[in-house]
Structures are given as C-alpha cells and as structure tokens.
C-alpha cells in the first residue's frame, strides 16, 4: 500500500498529518512494527547542523548612477566573484578577509547580511561606454539589494569520516584541533537524524525537493559536488563514509542566524554552520525500513589526518553510538571523541520542521528528477596534455 505525496499534502491541509522526527520513529517502529508505522505515520523529519564550506550566496546589488560593470568586488574587505553580469556577484563562505585574515570571511559577510547589518561594498571596473563608472564605495543591507540567495554547491554529506592524528604534533584541520598521538578524534554526521542516511538510496530526496534551509524554505537544486553514491554500503543501505551530497538553494533574505552561523577553524580557515532539515514522506513499508535506522547501525571509517595525502590510512570502523558515547578505541588506545556538527541544533531543526508541517506551513514535494545513483568520485591527476588521452 503506497502513499502519495498528494495524499500526504491533503492530510497536511486538513490538519490530520502524522509527523515524527527521525529520532522518534526509531522507538515508534520498535513498538508498532513496520506495517502499522507505514500506515499511521506520514512524514519523518531529518536534520543536520554542521560546518559546510561549500556554501555561498549570489547577490545582485542593483545599478548605481552612473552605472558600473564590476570587475572586482569586496564586501567588508572580503573578495567576491563578479565574473558575471554587471552587478551580479557570488560570495563564498570560505573566502578570507584581505584585512583580517581568518578572523573574518565570506561566511561572516553572509551572517551579517542575514542579521540585517550594513555591509561595506567596494568595487572597481575598467569602464565601458554603457558602464562608465570605474569605482564605487557604498553600503548595503539585505533589504537594499535586489536579490540575495544562498546557492550551496555541496551540503548535507551522507556520512563523513572520523578524524584523528597519529603524529607527534598538534594539527589544525577542518575537522578541528587534533592532538598528537591519537589524543582525540572528531566526527561530523548527525547520524540517525541525518537526512541522506534516512533515505540512503534517494528514493524521496531528489532535485526540486522542498527543504528547510537556515530558517527559510529552500530547495534541492542538484546533486552536490563530489556526490559519490557508489561508496561501499552496509546491507541497511547506509554508506560507510562520505557518499551522496546535495546542492541547495534558498532565499537569504528569509533566513535566520539561529540556523546559519559563521565559524573559524583555527589554522584552517573560515567555514559556516548550515542548518538543513529535510522531510521524508513515509511512502511505503520499505521507506520505514530505512527510516528506523539508528546510530548503532551507521558505520564510518577512522582516518589519520596527519598523513597529508589524498588517501589517508584507516584505523578501522566505528558506529555513531560508539562515537556519541565520548570514547572510541583507536590503535588499541582509548580516545576521546567530539562532534563538529551539533546534534542539539539538528534535533531543534527536526522538531521545528515537524511543527511547520503539522501547522500547515510546509508542504511536501515530489522531486522533479532523481539524484544520480551511480556516479563515482574522481581525483585530480597531474599530467601533461599528451598523458590526458
């Protein structure tokens, strides 16, 4: 007995929809069984709140008088990319400030825009007959510019590796500060709450899916960069390490800094915590089998981040229950763990999305096209032009 998105949306309209979070569904299935759960539950909300460097915003500033075709642009001294039409630009979260270095960057500009703070805009140009101005210095807010939308090439990683450090010195990575001699280990996925771990084969999440993005209603725009669905999987469907990814889009002007927060990883650079929530329709019993996944069913690999190579040596596999317990064993040694994504915030978002759906503020969508199911990730080889063929 399959349930359609249209049927679920009708229930949302009538205020009769049954929604659980990806945490709540675990006990529910245990008590009621798969069949009954598939009949009674309509939607399961998933979420994550972690640093996602591949995040940025497209901005259209509007035209000055006389107008300018910007060739270089800075927002609060952070360079943005403007190799587009006259006043279009893209500000990447990981871009560093030219005056403050890692203390400030694109992520902080995005955060300042969302919170309504004034942002200093400086641009230079070569000047043309139609765009004579060669320089501009002014201030903007999200309300004074035409468009501002987040377009994130890679978010919501389907699982991620654990990072540790076998060397004899402290290393500073995008997985945080790693102490020498396996002094600690850090991980990132929201595990049992994580969107793509609850729909491991992308049966319901696809291009066009409506989502919660940093407090606004956004959409899945495409598969994310480095989307790698061919990653080795367990019989329950979950990949053992980084696999699928999503490209997301949403209106920055409707977002909240409660669900999007700029951050700096000391010695590494600027990134941004992005809050994402994705509703998964309980279309059939098979979907319940995927949704009942819990932390102990999801495994990932422990990698040595002190090895500065593309492929890092593995120290075995662990599950998320072990990781969340605060201690794992690496190389025979007990090692303290810490998460770089916030389970507390992920849970908050899953509950908020649940409320939105129950209150009729959020309707589900059928995807427009599925995500690629078989792509494989490629490396970058250093070759001559002849070697390329």
């Amino acid at each position: 007995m399959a349930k359609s998105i249209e049927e679920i949306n009708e229930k949302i309209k009538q205020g009769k929809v049954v929604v659980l979070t990806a945490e709540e569904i675990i006990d529910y299935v245990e008590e009621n069984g798969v069949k009954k759960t598939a009949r009674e539950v309509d939607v399961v909300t998933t979420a994550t709140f972690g640093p996602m460097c591949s995040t940025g915003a497209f901005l259209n500033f509007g035209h000055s008088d006389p107008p300018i075709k910007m060739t270089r642009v800075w927002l609060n001294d952070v360079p943005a990319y403007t190799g587009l039409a006259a006043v279009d630009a893209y500000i990447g979260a990981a871009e560093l400030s030219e005056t403050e270095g890692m203390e400030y960057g694109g992520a902080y500009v995005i955060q300042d825009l969302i919170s309504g703070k004034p942002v200093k805009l400086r641009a230079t140009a070569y000047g043309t007959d139609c765009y004579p101005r060669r320089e501009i210095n002014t201030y903007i807010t999200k309300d004074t510019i035409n468009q501002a939308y987040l377009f994130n090439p890679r978010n919501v990683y389907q699982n991620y590796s654990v990072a540790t450090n076998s060397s004899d010195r402290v290393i500073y990575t995008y997985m945080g500060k790693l102490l020498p001699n396996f002094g600690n280990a850090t991980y990132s996925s929201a595990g049992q709450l994580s969107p793509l771990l609850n729909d491991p084969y992308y049966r319901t999440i696809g291009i066009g899916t409506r989502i919660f993005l940093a407090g606004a209603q956004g959409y899945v725009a495409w598969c994310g960069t480095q989307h790698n669905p061919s990653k080795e999987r367990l019989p329950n469907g979950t990949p053992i390490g980084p696999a699928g990814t999503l490209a997301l889009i949403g209106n920055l002007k409707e977002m909240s800094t409660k669900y999007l927060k700029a951050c700096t990883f000391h010695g590494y650079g600027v990134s941004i915590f992005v809050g994402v929530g994705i509703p998964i329709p309980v279309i059939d019993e098979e979907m319940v089998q995927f949704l009942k996944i819990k932390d102990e069913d999801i495994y990932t690999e422990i990698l040595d981040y002190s090895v500065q190579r593309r492929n890092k040596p593995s120290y075995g596999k662990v599950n998320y229950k072990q990781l969340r317990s605060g201690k794992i064993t690496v190389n025979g040694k007990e090692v303290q763990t810490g998460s770089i994504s916030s389970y507390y915030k992920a849970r908050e978002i899953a509950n908020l999305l649940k409320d939105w759906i129950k209150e009729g503020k959020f309707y589900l969508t059928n995807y427009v096209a599925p995500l690629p199911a078989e792509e494989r990730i490629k490396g970058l080889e250093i070759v001559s032009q002849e070697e390329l063929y």
Partner: protein
Amino acid sequence: MPSKRLVLTFPENIVTKPITYKLVKDFNLEFNILRAEVTPEMEGKMLLEIKGASEQIEKGIEYLLNEGVSVQEASKDITLDKEQCVHCGLCVSLCITNALSLDEKSYKLNFNKEKCILCGFCQNSCPVNAIKLKM
C-alpha cells in the same frame, strides 16, 4: 619568592617516572600540585605551582622538557559564552577532565568549572569562539 603556575603534560611512556620529586631534590623548588589527572596508558596532566629562585625555576623547566614533558604556562581563567555556543561538542574531545561535556539527554554543552584544570587544550578549538582563555 618567585612562583609560576604550569601545566605539565606527561606522555604515556613517562607517566610513571618520579619526575616531580626531582624538582625538589635537584633544583630546590617547592611545589604544590593544584590539579592532576593521570590515567594509565594515557597522557598525564598536572597543574603545578612551583616556587623557588628564578634561575632554579628556569633550570627545572629545562629538566622537564629534556625528560619529554611538555610545559606551558597555565591560563588564568576560562569562560564559556553561552550565547555564541552552538553545542557541537568539538571541545569535549580535547577536555581531559570532562569539565566540558555534552548532556546525555539534551546534547547541550555543559561547562563544569570545578573540574577544569586550566590546561588550555581547548584553546583555539572553538569554531565560534565561545571558549575564551585568559593567559
């Protein structure tokens, strides 16, 4: 008499050596162990106050470094900015005394100052700069 508050980190292979005793015997230093956390097969950490002639203190530190003990000056205070904290728990992995921990039910970050030995391991770890150390 000059004094210094130091955080000593003992690698696992020398945790059991009587190193602090030598500070008294060979360098004539008085010491006061303010906090210590030593677990077998893991690193040991100690917050130590040493008193003695400046020259002897310097020599004592040199001796410790030669023995493979890492020595740093203790921070004076650590504060957690609850407005900034996003409760990720990255700092938890660095906190050897569990002064920083995630609540088992709510997954909110707790900071129990009583347990903190001011070792400074959490320094430069917070991505949203919610942990502030005074040196």
